[in-house]
Structure formats: structure tokens, C-alpha cells
């Protein structure tokens, strides 16, 4: 009662009703959202049209033709295959490597903390610039990695410019940039685990492999899931590294979804096909992000609970 009275007695500053206030506060951010939703809906419309920038007069609805043609289009299957292969390889390797490094750095010490901070540097490098760095290092003329490859007997190892090693090269760059992401999340997870189960296990003389598989891994699972899904969502949409490194080449070796959509839009000016590709990619990421958000929320609530 006193609260209400004193509030009425001393009105100060803005007076906005309590019901309207949150809407007023979030409205500007919401408006920016709506501005973005319009192009999204446009993409849906385009994907059901025959629409080429070079032939604007022939623009018309062809309904599902863009999607149906994908079934018999080897280029589409290649896009799907390369995207899944890229996402699968990078995420699995980054998870294994990131977990291993996190375990190596688990103990808090000055050296370990220093190393974990140093390892953040690749992650903070713009992926497009990281690709450029690796491009310089794998240059057949003077690249230091080409030289090192020749030392171990790989004469004329072509890295990203050969169809047989292009995927390997971009995966390597992806690993260089994003392994620290998984490492840092898992390290934070490892260090936040309760100590009692480990002390009890040590007291009972439980073998370390048992501790790892039966205590550490299960307790770390929410962190592993969140980090993995996060990476999977980004990796299936990878554009920067692949475009900066090879522009989807050589040939169509690396035409993952976003690169293929980009090339369709700007090179073959086939807006309809490009939009249909993006809608399919969106469907995949929408499905993945729903699973991700569930895990992410659980982790978030846990973090808030600890605060």
C-alpha cells in the first residue's frame, strides 16, 4: 500500500502504464525484425517463380517447378552432398579435437589459462581473412605449407586448387578457425562440473577410463550438445571460408548451399533456383535450431541458476 501511495505522491520522470512499457521498450528492435521478415517472405515467393534477372519479361509463377527439378538435377545433389559432408566432417573433427584440448587444459594453471586465451585468436580472426591466410600459405609458388608438403614427399600437392584435396583444405581452415569455439565451451563446462563425484571416484580407486566415460562425459553432455549443434548450424551454412578460398571451385567441387545460391543469383542470375536453394537450407537450419534452442535453454537456465 505504501508503495502505491508514495509512487502517486512523487511522480517523477516518464509515466507510462506498466502494461504498455515492455512493448514500448522492445518495439524498435521488433521493427528491425519486421524489416528483415519481408525479404524472407519475398524469398519464399521467388522460390515458386521462374525468375531470371536476365529475362525479367519471362518472370512467372511456376509453383513447385524449381523444387521438383532438384530431384533430377545432379548439381543439386552435389550441393546437398558437399554441404552435408563439409558440415559432418568439420563438426566431428572439431568436436574430437576441441574435447581433447579442453581435457588437456582442464586444470587451472597460469600456463593452461594462457594457452586457452592464445587459442582464441584463430576464432577471432575473420573467417574470410583466415581463408586468405591459408591461401597464401598453400600457394604453389611460395606457400610454406606447399613447401612442407614437398618435404614429406607430396610433390606438387595442390591444396584447394585440386578437386581431390579442395574439401580437405577448406575443412582444415574451418578446423583452424572453429575448434577453439568448441574447446572454450567445453572447457567452461568441464571447469563448472561439481567435484564430489570425481573425489569419490578417486577415493574408490575407480579406473580413469571409467571416470571419463561414466562421469565426465555424461555430465558434459549438455555442453557437448549445445556446442555441436551450434557448430552444425553454422557449418551447414558455411560461405566465407569456401567462397574466399575457392569460390566454390574447382569446377563445382565445393558448391555448398550458400555458395551455390550466391553463384546462381549473381552469375547465372537464376533468382528462382537460388531462392529455392535457400528455402531448403532454411528448412534444414530451422529443424536443427529447434533442437539446438531446447538444449541451449536448458544450459542457460543452469547458468542463471548458478549465478
Amino acid at each position: 500500500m505504501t508503495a502505491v501511495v508514495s509512487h502517486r505522491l512523487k511522480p517523477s520522470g516518464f509515466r507510462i502504464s506498466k502494461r504498455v512499457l515492455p512493448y514500448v521498450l522492445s518495439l524498435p528492435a521488433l521493427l528491425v525484425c519486421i524489416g528483415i521478415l519481408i525479404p524472407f517472405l519475398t524469398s519464399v515467393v521467388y522460390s515458386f517463380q521462374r525468375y531470371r534477372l536476365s529475362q525479367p519479361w519471362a518472370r512467372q509463377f511456376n509453383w513447385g517447378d524449381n523444387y521438383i527439378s532438384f530431384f533430377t538435377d545432379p548439381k543439386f545433389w552435389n550441393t546437398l552432398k558437399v554441404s552435408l559432408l563439409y558440415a559432418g566432417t568439420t563438426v566431428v573433427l572439431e568436436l574430437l579435437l576441441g574435447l581433447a584440448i579442453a581435457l588437456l587444459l582442464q586444470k587451472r594453471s597460469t600456463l593452461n589459462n594462457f594457452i586457452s586465451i592464445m587459442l582464441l585468436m584463430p576464432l577471432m580472426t575473420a573467417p574470410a581473412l583466415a581463408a586468405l591466410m591459408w591461401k597464401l600459405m598453400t600457394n604453389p609458388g611460395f606457400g610454406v605449407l606447399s613447401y612442407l608438403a614437398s618435404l614429406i614427399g607430396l610433390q606438387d600437392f595442390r591444396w584447394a586448387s585440386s578437386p581431390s584435396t579442395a574439401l580437405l583444405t577448406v575443412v582444415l581452415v574451418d578446423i583452424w578457425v572453429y575448434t577453439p569455439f568448441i574447446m572454450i565451451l567445453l572447457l567452461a563446462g568441464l571447469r563448472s562440473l561439481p567435484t564430489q563425484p570425481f573425489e569419490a571416484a578417486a577415493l574408490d580407486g575407480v579406473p580413469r577410463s571409467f571416470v571419463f566415460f561414466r562421469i565426465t562425459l555424461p555430465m558434459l553432455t549438455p555442453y557437448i550438445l549445445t556446442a555441436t549443434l551450434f557448430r552444425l548450424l553454422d557449418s551447414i551454412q558455411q560461405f566465407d571460408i569456401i567462397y574466399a578460398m575457392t569460390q566454390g571451385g574447382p569446377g563445382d567441387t565445393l558448391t555448398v548451399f550458400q555458395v551455390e545460391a550466391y553463384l546462381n543469383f549473381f552469375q547465372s542470375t537464376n533468382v528462382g533456383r537460388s531462392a529455392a536453394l535457400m528455402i531448403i537450407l532454411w528448412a534444414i537450419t530451422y529443424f536443427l535450431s529447434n533442437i539446438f534452442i531446447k538444449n541451449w535453454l536448458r544450459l542457460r537456465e543452469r547458468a542463471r541458476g548458478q549465478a
Partner: protein
Amino acid sequence: MEHTSLLERILRGVALTLVVIFFMFPIVWIFMMSFQTNETILRIPPQLIFEPTLANYTALITGKLMTAAGTLDIAFMRNLWNSVFLSVTSVAVSLLLGVPAAYAFARHKFRGSEDIAFTLLSFRFAPALLVLLPLTLYFQKLGLANTYIGLIWVYQLICLPLILWIVRGYFEDIPADIEYAYRIGGHSWFATFRKIALPLAGPGIAAAGLLAFIFAWNNFVFALVLASADKQPVTVGALAFITSSGIQYGQISAAIVLSITPTLALALYAQRYLVEGLSLGAVKG
């Protein structure tokens, strides 16, 4: 854990050394290349010891490259300025829009609040080109193509979800009782927001801003699609180098060093908050 064998300690040491070499080598190597002339860069085997030169940096900073064939203009400083301007302004706009919204989402459960918050979050995970490609056509009609305003608007896709979700977490961490006490003292919600909530969430807001800056700076695809040469940031500008004639590898390296130094420096400065920021507020460091 205390009684680790000597063998295990050696193996751990070797593994950590390999990890550090793999992740640090490219940065160190490009840094070294940026102080070399084309002659030393092209030498085989690659040189570890060389006479360092600042010529690459002077060429980039003065924008003039003297070659045997004549003087070449390099617009790299323009790219660098674009990166600074685009990132700073985008983050400022994002903070202005995102911090009040984050406060609303943290303090008031209102109808549709979670839906809006999740819609904003979903932007973080939607394919960028899904929105960007139709946007190029709209921007041409609206006269926003190749303008800073258009770019800053689109950059909100990167900065806003990040700021909203991190800052929301920091507001939620402030006990509501502190704010109630201040409100009971007869202060308006705005005074409470300004005098209590903002200062308490201050470090978190600053960290979110720094992270948003890093992500805006590192973005590539938005400017690649929506900006021409005079508005392009370093990520797009540096890539154009490799195809432009006359530019030497030392200058490309120097451009990379200048382009990644700001984000690396900021990341080291804000590293305490990186875990929380990278996980969009789900994991605390």
C-alpha cells in the same frame, strides 16, 4: 590426478605443443610475411631469417605503391575506415535498440515476449543469403544499395540478437528486489533503469558491445553482396587484393595483419566474457 606419471606428463606436453603450433603458426607466419619483400617471400625454401622491411605497411598507409611500372593506388585505408565506421555505428545502434528490449524481456513477462525474443535469436541461425539476395533487389529500389545506412541496418542481424540475449542474461542476474526497493522509494521505472539496472549490468553491456563489434568487423557476406568497392570493409577489400594486379604478397599479408589486429586485441581485452558471449549467454566462463 596428482600422481601423474612422467610419461603422461611428457605426452601431454608434446600434445599441447603441437596444438599451440597448429593454431598459432598461421598468424605468426603471416605476421612475418608482412615484413618481407616479394623477393624474400618467393625464395625457396621459405626463409625464417630475413631483413625486415616496413615497405608493405608504408605502401598500405600512404595508399601508394611504387613499382617499376609506375605508381599504383591502393584503397586499403578506405576499407579499414569502412570497417571501423560500419562496426562502431552498427554496435551503437544495436545497443540503443537492444538494451531497452533486453530489459523488457528480462523484467516483464508480457504477451508475445518470448516469441519476439526467439524470433530475434532465430536470425542468428538463418542463412544470411536467404534475406540478403532479395534485399539486394529491394535496396536498389529504395536507394539503399551501397549506402552505409543500408549496411548498418543489415548489420543489426549480427549485432542485435547477440546483444539482446547476452544483456538479457545480465539483467536477469540483478535481483529484482533491488529495483523494487528503489521503486518504493518513489522513483520512476526510467530512473530505476538508469540508476540501478544500467550500472549493475554495465560490464555485461560493454562486453556484449565488444563482441558485437568483433562479429560485425569479421562479417564478410553482407558487404560482399550489398557494397561496392568504396563502402567495403577489410574482409571484402583484402580478398579483392589477391586478384588485383601489381599488388605483392607482402602487402596482402600486411593488410591481413592490420585487419585482424583490432579484433584480436579486443578479444584479449574481453576474453573474460568471451565464453558467455559466444554461447549467447548460455555458458558462463
